[in-house]
């Protein structure tokens, strides 16, 4: 099922446009940090601790996006069997793991000074811990299966299981009793609404866009490396096949 035509055997280094995107992302990250740490006013209830929200919420939203895209490319791999889809699924899943870890650590950092506890096993936090554990499982499974096609299929199923947990996680603060506050902003067909000062919303949205760009850069670079690895693996298999033929 794996199709060698789908592997772009890049042999050079990182393309110049990807380096340029990386530099732009670093500059935008600095602007986002400036807005959050200097421009944002303190919140009436949380004071300066509101500045943690910009880091924590942006990481959490990007984690959700990464999980969705990892599952989408996993489904595409199950459907079309193209190795390029598996490579992209892995790139998204690796970023999902990174952002899930950041969401948990950042949430603990936010929770201790505001709610006086690092952790509690309520619905929202438990579901996030489960999401992280499932993403770790995704890579454990990949490490256990040698066959490339089977590895792609099994890990795609794990990615779909992770995706299935997402709606419960997203709605946990509304559906279950939890220490985690409900969503700060409501996104609906009518647009984005909230009761807070608009400056908080705009600084948060800017930092969400920056986190999404950081994630985009990670995925593009990881996909490039995945294509190099797949090309190398294919060449090694071809060499091994020729050796076997000579031995026979």
């Amino acid at each position, binding site marked *: 099922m794996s199709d060698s035509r789908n592997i772009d055997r890049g*042999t050079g*280094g*990182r393309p110049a446009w990807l380096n340029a995107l990386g530099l732009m992302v670093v500059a935008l*990250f600095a602007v986002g*940090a400036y807005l*959050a*740490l200097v421009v944002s006013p303190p919140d009436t209830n949380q*004071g*300066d*601790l509101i*500045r*943690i929200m910009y*880091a*924590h919420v942006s*990481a959490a939203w990007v984690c959700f996006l990464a999980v969705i895209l990892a599952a989408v490319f996993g489904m595409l791999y199950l459907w079309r069997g193209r190795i390029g889809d598996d490579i992209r699924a892995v790139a998204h899943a690796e970023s999902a793991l*990174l952002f899930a*870890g*950041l969401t948990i*650590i*950042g949430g603990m*950092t*936010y929770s*201790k*000074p505001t709610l006086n506890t690092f952790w509690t096993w309520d619905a929202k936090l438990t579901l996030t811990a489960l999401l992280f554990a499932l993403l770790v499982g995704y890579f454990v499974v990949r490490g256990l299966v040698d066959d490339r096609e089977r590895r792609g299929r099994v890990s795609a199923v794990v990615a779909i299981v992770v995706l299935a947990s997402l709606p419960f996680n997203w709605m946990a603060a509304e559906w279950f009793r939890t220490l985690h506050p409900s969503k700060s902003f409501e996104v609906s067909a009518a647009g984005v609404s909230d009761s807070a000062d608009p400056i908080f919303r705009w600084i948060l949205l800017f930092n969400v866009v920056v986190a999404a760009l*950081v994630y985009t850069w*990670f995925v593009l*670079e*990881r996909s*490039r*490396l995945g294509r*190099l*690895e797949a*090309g*190398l693996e294919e060449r090694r298999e071809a060499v091994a096949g020729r050796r076997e033929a000579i031995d026979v």
Partner: protein
Amino acid sequence: MFDGWSPWAWVALSWLELLVAYGGYMLYLRGRSRRLEDDV
């Protein structure tokens, strides 16, 4: 141990976490890229 921390200490820690995570993953990708490009 953490009860005496000021709000700004928590704020600094949360942004430092982002820097460490992004920087660490970037370094990991760079190292992996160098090894791969040597092999290719």
